[in-house]
Each structure stands twice: as C-alpha cells, then as structure tokens.
C-alpha cells in the first residue's frame, strides 16, 4: 500500500514537471499572441501557422547542417521579418475594416498557409535528422527527456526576455502606450503603425523561436501548429486578452491541466480539464484571470 502511495506521488510529480515544461512552451506561443492582441486588438488566428512555418524553416536549416538551437535566432529573425511584411501588406488593411475583418482575414491566412505547406512539403510528418538532447535526465524520482527540458527552459528564458523588453525598453513602453490608448499615443508622437508592425513582428518571432525549440521533439506537418495555437488561444483568453502576465499564469495552469487530463482521463481527453477550467473561470470573471474590462 505504502509503495503504491509513493509511486502515485512520484507519478504526480512527474506529471507536474511535464506539465510545467509544456506550460512554458505554451507561454512563449501565447505571449506572442497576447502582445499582438494587446497592441492592436487583433486575434491572429494564423498564429499556429506561423509556428508551423518556423518549424519547416528549422527543418530546412537542419537539412543543411544547422541544428535547431543554432538555427533558433535565424528562424526568429526570419519570422520577425515575415510578421512585419504580413502586417504592412495585409493586417494594416484589415484594421481599416469592420472588427470581423481581422477575424476572417487571419483565418484566410491560416487556410492559405496550410494549403501552401501542403502543396510544397506534402502532408508527411518530418523530423530533424539526428536531433540533439535525446537522453533522459533524472532529478530525484523525476525523469525528464532532455529535449523537453531544453524546450521548457529555452521558452522560459525567451518569455522572460520578451517581458523585460516590453517592461523596460523605450519601444516596449511605446507598445504599452499604444495598447493603453491609441489616440493618446498618437498625440504623444508615437508612430502607431510602426509600433503595430513591430509588435506583429515580435509576436511572429516568438513562435519563430518556439518552432525551433519544438523541432527538438516534435515532427512538423502542415497542421502541426494548429493544436498549439488552439491551446494558445485558450491560454490568452483565460489569462485575459492582452495581458502578458495573465498569459504566463494561464499557460502554466493549462500545461498542468493538459498533462494531468491526458494521464488521469485519457490521452484524447487531455483538453477536457482545460476547457472546463476556461468555462468555469470566464463565467466568474468574464475578462479572464488578469484581463482588463
């Protein structure tokens, strides 16, 4: 009996550690999404497809001999530029239309990018050849795959860096000013279009980095980003749209719930506790955990 108890506890610790690490990756994906929402009130439904593109880019670099971690800054920069271009030629136009234009415009982008990936790279699952960090690390009773650990820690560092950027740099302050009040920010001489483009680029760079990290342990295929993005939408809503701290808290919560749900319910029901938690919290606090009304 005692043994069973200890074992159950160990399993639980194992799951918590796994959930925490998964949550950190969700946080990195979600922070990019919530930053864009905070600054320009746009939910980028193609966020997951940006992630998918980043994963393919990482794969491409790996095929020419540049590993995922070395490739990470390159992919992040590439996605940043991609994001800025998409903002300049497309999102900016959507913002001039009715509110629903940004919803279905980014959905169109989602369909388009998935289709492009399908036609260019086929629907096959593809992985980085000879990925690093294949071992297992034991911390006491908890065994973690090295790749997952690197993903979690990498996501934590990058999320922290983004947070510091928004909190402490001049550009970050400009972004917060635009998020607070667009008109006032314009009057203060802030170039809102530039800030928007920058925020969209940074949002894309977040999934650029996340995509490179995820290639350590995941295969890529045209809809690989969709499930991450779906979780990220829930994370962002749960934390409160536009709130970076909220997204962090919610991401860790969602990561845990997903891992626990997958273990104690069934793998295909892992999202059930996440959705139940979302509905329960949002019915009590319609603006999410840390969102503004």
């Amino acid at each position, binding site marked *: 009996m005692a043994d069973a108890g200890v074992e159950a506890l160990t399993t639980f610790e194992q799951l918590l550690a796994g959930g925490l690490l998964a949550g950190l990756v969700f946080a990195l994906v979600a922070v990019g999404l919530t930053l864009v929402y905070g600054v320009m009130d746009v*939910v980028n439904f193609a966020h997951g497809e940006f992630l998918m593109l980043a994963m393919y880019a990482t794969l491409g670099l790996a095929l020419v001999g540049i590993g995922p971690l070395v490739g990470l800054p390159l992919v992040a920069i590439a996605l940043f530029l991609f994001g800025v271009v998409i903002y300049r030629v*497309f999102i900016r*136009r*959507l913002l*001039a*239309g*009715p*509110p*629903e*234009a*940004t*919803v*279905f*415009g980014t*959905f*169109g*982008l*989602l*369909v*388009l*990018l*998935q*289709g*492009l*990936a*399908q*036609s*260019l790279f086929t*629907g096959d699952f593809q992985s980085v050849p000879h990925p690093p960090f294949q071992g297992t690390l034991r911390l006491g009773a908890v065994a973690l795959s090295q790749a997952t650990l690197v993903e979690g820690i990498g996501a934590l560092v990058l999320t922290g860096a983004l947070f510091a950027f928004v909190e402490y740099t001049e550009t970050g302050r400009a972004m917060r000013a635009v998020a607070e009040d667009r008109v006032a920010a314009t009057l203060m001489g802030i170039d809102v279009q530039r800030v928007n483009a920058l925020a969209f680029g940074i949002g894309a760079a977040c999934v650029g980095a996340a995509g490179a990290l995820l290639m350590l342990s995941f295969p890529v295929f*045209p809809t690989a980003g969709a499930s991450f993005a*779906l979780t990220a*939408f*829930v994370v962002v*809503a749960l934390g409160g*749209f536009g709130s970076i701290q909220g997204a962090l808290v919610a991401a860790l919560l969602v990561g845990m719930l997903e891992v626990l749900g997958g273990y104690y319910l*069934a793998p*295909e*029901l892992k*999202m*059930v506790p996440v*959705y*139940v938690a*979302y*509905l329960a919290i*949002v*019915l009590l606090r*319609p*603006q*999410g955990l840390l969102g503004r009304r």
Partner: protein
Amino acid sequence: MRWHLLALGAIVVLGAAAAFGLRDAVTLDLFFTLLLYAVLGQSWNWISGYAGNISFGHAIFFGCGAYASALCVTHGLSPWLAIPAGALVAALLALVTGFPTLALRGHYFSIATIAVAALVDAFVRTQPWLGRANGFELPIQSGWAALQFPDKGPYVLLALALFAIVQLATIALERSRLGYYLRALRANHAAAASVGIDERRWKLIAFAWSATMAAAAGVLYAQYTLFVDPPSTIALAISIDIALIGVVGGIGTLWGPAAGALVYVVLAKGVALRIGGTGKGYDLVIYGAIICLIAAWKPHGIVGTVVDALRRRRGAADIPPGATGTA
C-alpha cells in the same frame, strides 16, 4: 422584400428543375453540398451575423441532427422523427450553453464556443450509445418513409426545401422585433439595454432557432452520406467552415450565407475537383487567398458590399469615407 421572394422563387424553380433534369452525380453532389452549407451558414448567421456573437462551435448543432438521425434509424425508428428530436435537443443544448456564455463579450464568447464544442466532442467519443469515435453506419433502405434514395435528385429537392424554409424564416426575422433587437444588440449592447432590450432573452431565442436549423441540416446530411462520426459532424474544422461561409458572404445579410456557400463549393471544392488538388493543398491555397482578398478589400463580404453600394446609389446612406465600422 418582394425582390427577395422573387429571387428565392427563381432559385427554387431552377433548383427543382436541376434536381429532376440533371443526372450527373458529381454536379448534383456539389449542388446538395451548396444548399446544405447555405443552410448552415444562415443558421450561423442568426446568432453570429445578426446578433454578433461569433461562434466557432456551430457544428455541434449540426451534429445533434446527424446523431438524432443515426440513433433513430439504428433503433428502427423513422428518420422523420429525427427532425423534431434533433431540433429539440439542439435547441436545448443552445439554451443550456447559451445561458451562461452569451453574456461573454467578443473573443471570450468565441473561445467559449470552441470549449463547449470540444467538450461535446469529447462526450460523444466516450459514450458507447453514441458510437464513440467510430460513429454510425446507417443501414441502406429506400423511399420517402426511410428518407433514403438511390439517386441524388430527391436529396437536392429536400435540401432546396430546407434552404427555402430557412431563407423565408430569415426574411421574417429581418422584419420582426427579434431581428431589430439582434441588430441593435450587435451594434451597441448598452444602448440596446437602454431601450429595454433584454440581451439574454432575445439572444437565447435566436440561438435556439439557429440551432434548430443546423439540426435539420444535420438530419439531411446523415440521410445523404449514411455515415455519422465526430470528425464529419461536430469537429472544430466543420464549425470553422460554417463560420467562414458566413463571413465571406457578408455577416448579417439575407443572401450572405448563400453567396459564401457558393464561393466555398464552387471555388474550393469545384476547383479542387478540376485540377485534382484534393490532398495536395491547391484548393486550400485558392480558398484561403479568396478569403484574404475579401477580408482586405471587401470586408463587409460579398453581399454586404452589394448592399452598401445599393444604399449609396439610393443616396440614403451618405457614409463619409473611412467612417465604416465605428460609432
């Protein structure tokens, strides 16, 4: 209104002629799909277009009908019974889930619909009496009593009848207290309350009717494909198809969903058939590009743009440039 009725009459006459005259199974299949999606798009349009609560979970109501049909037929009951039964279950589901969620604003509501739909999906997958993940294959029968036919003509007729009913209901909606109230709530919920509109009550009514229409389409779909499982009826992907059809045509307009369904079926499905793109992604590229173009250049959708243009020609609107979408 007279023009709307004339247009609907013309569609019914032409559609019926096609259902009797055409023998090409592929064309009839496209035609059936077009009408079915037009109905689903209109159903979505009631709550998401007129009332402005964008739903990404509408397929669960479609699923109510499809599963009602599967359950009726596999238990030896008439599939006709599935129409009221599926509609009733869908309406109840709409009331129960809408009561707490319809008060949520903007994206919080949309994500809640995804959550509710995912929970319904998970529920179905765990219930043996709902066929779990495997779903149901309906036994093959024939005739009006069994609501099954060896060729596609009668199915097109039934879809046409359902489409006509749904369009007539929407014409009535636009000329009713409910229709005015939904538009007012969508435009400004606080101002709507200030003139005595009870948001929850009227949106629940709209949501229940909307679910009813989707369920009717679900029954027809199940009888047509004779196969019902979660991915083909209640999955997120179906919900998103329905929502995209609604917005591409123009939300909150009478003919928007039909126009959106036309784009979806003719351009996405039709083109895929011609160039053999299914599975290669070309169909998605074309459809995605069309959605992007409409969003960026005609953000009020196809019909919305036409309505604006007509209004401008009548000189009734006097919309200053750039004033769209803001109070």
